[in-house]
């Protein structure tokens, strides 16, 4: 893993890259004490403000901080512009795909995606078949995970189209950097991100059911013990809308209402941060106490908008991922701008054979897995771990895909012994409504352990502020 792209230092010469020069010269002049003091200040502030997340199955530290690193990830405008074009294209195609799947299924008829890939997918929702949603938009908020392997060489790792989280950290990280090092913002032209909540509200209002004039938008959370509760509360507050739980809502005469101190109030758009399965105990999991009985029927009647729509998971599953470039070609008649990571689909015998023969070089992921759980990173695993995984793979090959172990780019990061490169990814948040929009940048996650490629916060990852430098 020694060979990776360093975001700050050019390979070979060790020279600082153009877009990091100003930052580097500033950094050289900072004393270790000042940086250490600022880091402690950041830690204290995050804790006091309560920007914490819960780790499931961890009783002792039920509220933890996500480590924040003070060295920003800087992306020059020309690179970002290309990424942005690629993201708009990709998310547009993905929305068209979900619409197609729940209507005419032209992509199946054209023989591009096998029908069983759809119908056998646990995320496919037959309830959505033939249902029209506002503006034909399904994934109103998409969090697309992107990694860099080399100069100009970006790959999409995952399209998160269900309830992607992390945007509050993007916003809080920026606020923190501006508070800790205001002088840096005077020296750089950093594209702002603070207007994200306004864009989000605008986007949600634009997809309200037809004929609603002044739509009421709410954020729906599973509750304060959910790991992303901070973000739910944060977004509701920033947008100035109510944060509701399932028990605050009820269905009456084909509309959704919330219980207020002045009686029922109609709700038109629900930005729900709760999985499909828990939305409506009458339609999905009957043991769900988080949902609203009857919600699905109102939704199907087009009297309320859910963002994201029910059934978007059919498009962000790892078994569908290999087909996304074909979707772009099929729906938009364009060549995809963003690359997919080459993927072996273990359901195919020849791909399985290749995977089994190269386990020590590959990354193998569960098709329905998320959060860095249930995966094998070949080069970082012991012989025993590989053999154990081999058995899992043979037992249920269609549950897995394999990808080459990418040399993820690395960014200088504070570690115990000073500054060292650590691997990073990037999650931009793409909003789809009447138009497709996003704030420049996204959330940069960093794997804090040396050599680690797992950036998930549940696995000890940290975050950085992400700067798009305007030219």
């Amino acid at each position, binding site marked *: 893993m020694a060979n990776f792209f360093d975001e700050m230092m050019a390979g070979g010469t060790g020279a600082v890259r153009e877009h990091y020069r100003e930052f580097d010269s500033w950094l050289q002049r900072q004393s270790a004490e000042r940086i250490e003091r600022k880091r402690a200040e950041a830690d204290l502030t995050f*804790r*006091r*403000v*309560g920007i914490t997340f819960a780790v499931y199955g961890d009783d002792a530290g039920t509220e933890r901080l996500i480590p924040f690193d003070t060295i920003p990830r800087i992306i020059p405008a020309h690179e970002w512009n290309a990424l942005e074009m690629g993201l708009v294209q990709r998310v547009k195609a993905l929305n068209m795909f979900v619409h197609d799947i729940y209507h005419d299924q032209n992509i199946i008829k054209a023989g591009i995606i096998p029908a069983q890939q759809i119908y056998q997918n646990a995320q496919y929702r037959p309830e959505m078949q033939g249902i029209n949603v506002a503006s034909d938009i399904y994934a109103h908020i998409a969090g697309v995970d992107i990694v860099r392997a080399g100069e100009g060489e970006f790959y999409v790792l995952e399209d998160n189209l269900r309830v992607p989280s992390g945007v509050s950290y993007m916003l809080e990280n920026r606020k923190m950097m501006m508070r800790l090092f205001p002088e840096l913002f005077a020296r750089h032209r950093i594209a702002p991100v603070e207007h994200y909540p306004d864009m989000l509200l605008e986007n949600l209002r634009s997809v309200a059911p037809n004929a609603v004039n002044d739509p009421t938008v709410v954020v729906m959370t599973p509750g*304060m013990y959910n790991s992303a*509760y901070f973000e739910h*509360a*944060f977004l*509701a*507050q920033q947008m100035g809308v*109510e*944060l*509701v*739980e399932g*028990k*605050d809502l009820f269905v009456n005469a084909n509309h959704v209402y*919330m*219980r*207020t*101190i*002045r*009686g029922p109030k109609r709700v038109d758009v629900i930005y729900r941060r709760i999985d499909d399965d828990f939305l409506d105990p009458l339609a999905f999991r009957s043991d769900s106490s988080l949902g609203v009985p009857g919600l699905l029927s109102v939704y199907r009647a087009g009297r309320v908008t859910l963002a994201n729509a029910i059934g978007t998971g059919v498009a962000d599953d790892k078994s569908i991922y290999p087909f996304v470039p074909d979707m772009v070609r099929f729906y938009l008649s364009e060549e995809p701008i963003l690359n997919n990571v080459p993927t072996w689909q273990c359901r195919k015998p020849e791909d399985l054979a290749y995977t089994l023969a190269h386990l020590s070089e590959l990354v193998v992921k569960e098709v329905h897995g998320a959060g860095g759980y249930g995966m094998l990173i070949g080069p970082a695993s012991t012989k025993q771990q590989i053999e154990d995984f081999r058995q899992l793979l043979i037992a249920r090959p269609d549950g897995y895909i394999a990808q080459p172990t990418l040399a993820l780019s690395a960014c200088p990061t504070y570690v115990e012994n000073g500054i060292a490169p650590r691997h990073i990814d990037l999650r931009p948040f793409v909003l789809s409504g009447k138009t497709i929009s996003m704030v420049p940048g996204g959330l940069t996650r960093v794997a804090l352990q040396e050599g680690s490629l797992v950036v998930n916060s549940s696995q000890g990852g940290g975050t950085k502020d992400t700067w798009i430098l305007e030219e």
Partner: protein
Amino acid sequence: MLSRTADHLYWMARYTERAENTARMLDVAVQTSMLPQSTEDAESGWRAVLGISELEEAFEAKHDVLDARNVLEFMISDATNSSSIVSCLTGARENARAVRGVLTTEVWETHNATWLEMQRRVNKVALDGDPSEFFEWVKYRSHLSRGVTVGTMLTDEAMYFLRLGTFLERADNTARILDIKYHAAKQAGLGDAVTQRDFYYWAALLRSVSGFEIYRKVYRDAITPARVAELLMLRADMPRSLLACMEQVLFNLKAVRNDVSLDTERMAGRMHADLQFASIDDVLEAGLDDTLSDFLENIFELGNRISRDFLVPLAA
């Protein structure tokens, strides 16, 4: 506003106020216990502390010996005692966390910082064995929480429900302290004649509600039980008196009036009027004990009605 949101705000304020009053009451108990007294008197003093919050049984289920150390531990840091200071501050913070989006950043941070700091302080109390500084701190954080609420929040429904919680809880707590102290005084044979022993007893009660200096200012005279009762019940200008609390309860209840709340408002209005037009002689003649227990029952009923009309109804 969501009913659940109002519910969290109301309980956040009640827990904060309860933590403060518990600290006040314990502080006085600790001060009183330093006066020369018999073992029996000391024990009955600590029993009275538990009596105020109706916790004798819960305490006896956990402790064999009724002494200062056990009572303080039970009332300060025992997380299984829902009235302990730790439980109250945790409750306040949990409720705040559930509606942090409705609070200003300053209000939320105040509650969160209190909760974080509490854990360190509680350990220190256990180590040092001197809780007075801790009580001071709890009072101070409660003042701060109220101040930052009034100083930063919009005067809207959120504020009204916070204030409603604060004053309903305070009315309840003041009535309880007064009730128990009068009862204990009777048992101890304290009469109307003002002895030195009496002085310390009533002075301690006054101090527990920040009323000692107020008493001096208002009456400029010796401390008598009748005047203490008057001050804590009927003086509208004494911020912890029953009348002052009911005035605020009524005001905030009117501010959030809805289609079904008129009966509740009427009830609060009656309670307020009863205090406003009473003289202390009437009260004493009718019996202070009875007046206070009626008042406490009414407060309980009023709380239930507020829950039913506006909030998440309490489980039956």
